[in-house]
């Protein structure tokens, strides 16, 4: 009887130990902590050789649920404005896309409910809704992302910024515009306007090579 009691209490203690063993990383994670800011860059690119840039007039919304569309919400306006001012702060001159800019900046919001889209940031370049190369005056061309660009598997909402080399577009193989810089913002709250300034500042801060000489 006494032995049975001991066995049972030992078993009870064991169950408590097993069930409370692991500290779960996601349980106490804030939205700020959940976000990651990824930048990829072309190691062969010399960012100082570019002088001018242009940016899309709206944001492509790429979704695996609702199809694709271009939007210009208040969030989108703020995002585009932040990107412009950061680029200008690095010495690049904003010009109209008709004025043959050296660099083109595509901005997209990606909304996926599955995690199956893959690792490569260039993957959605072929998706309906993504910026057509024709927008930049290269109809029928494709996009090319260096193969070592890779980002983490993600789900739900993210933001992508792709900086394309138009200056050297003529010399590219197979009529492709090379993305020399790519930004991925992912995690909770990336579509929240209050976070734009912090997020955009962070990606420029970690990309000190992105500047030109005047």
């Amino acid at each position, binding site marked *: 009887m006494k032995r049975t009691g*001991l066995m049972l209490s030992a078993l009870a203690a064991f169950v408590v130990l097993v069930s409370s063993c692991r500290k779960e990383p996601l349980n106490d994670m804030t939205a700020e902590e959940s976000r*990651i800011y990824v930048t990829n860059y072309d190691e062969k690119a010399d960012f100082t050789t570019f002088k001018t840039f242009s940016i899309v007039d709206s944001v492509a919304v790429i979704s695996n649920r609702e199809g694709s569309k271009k939007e210009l919400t208040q969030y989108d306006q703020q995002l585009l404005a932040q990107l412009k001012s950061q680029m200008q702060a690095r010495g690049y001159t904003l010009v109209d896309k008709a004025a043959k800019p050296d660099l083109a900046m595509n901005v997209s919001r990606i909304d996926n409910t599955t995690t199956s889209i893959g690792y490569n940031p260039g993957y959605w370049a072929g998706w309906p809704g993504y910026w057509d190369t024709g927008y930049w005056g290269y109809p029928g061309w494709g996009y090319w992302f260096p193969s070592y660009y890779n980002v*983490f598997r993600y789900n739900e909402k993210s933001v992508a910024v792709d900086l394309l080399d138009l200056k050297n577009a003529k010399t590219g193989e197979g009529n492709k515009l090379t993305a020399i810089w790519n930004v991925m913002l992912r995690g909770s709250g990336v579509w929240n306007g209050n976070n734009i300034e912090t997020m955009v500042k*962070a990606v420029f801060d970690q990309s000190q090579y992105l500047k030109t000489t005047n």
Partner: protein
Amino acid sequence: MKSIKTIILGLALIAGGAVAAHAQSRPPLSVNVNYSIAQPLGSLKDYADKTSFRGWNVGVQYHLNDQLAVGLKTGFGDFYERVPRAVYPGKGEDISAVQTRTLQTIPILATVQYTFTKPDAAVLPYAGLGIGTANMNYEKYWGEFVEKENKWAFQVSPEVGVNVPFGKYSPFMFNASVQYNYAPYKQFEIKNFNTVQANIGLKFHIQ
């Protein structure tokens, strides 16, 4: 239960050769349950430097005589550290993230243990060695995104401790021990698994 006994008896033969059966002071089969605290060392400490208070282990032993026992041991340990936001450079890549670095380990060890005193002593000090394998579950969170690898590694764990019976010849004892764990486990920044672990718990001879 019968198969566990068979395994332990098999281990007994490997470990100690034939040991003549003779009268023992306590029933030969014992079970112990322990809570454990582990301190990571070396590259594991660089990865996740917090002392782990989330560990336990259980073991069964077959006592060949009053001094020598062989058995099996398993358990769990969880290492964890959250690192404030930083930029991690890679090839053509920089990632700004809050990293939550975790490692869960489940060792499965064959053990041999030698008690230094007579069975009627008030305190029974012992030394032991565990050799076997450990499942290492590496989960590093970049923000809310996990990078995950699970694999097995060889592990060796020497141990020293004391058993304090609740009364002379009692089959029921308090146990306290310190063990060192080493596993040649490599995963990204972890070059090997290296910890010092303290255990407290209960041990009882059941039959």
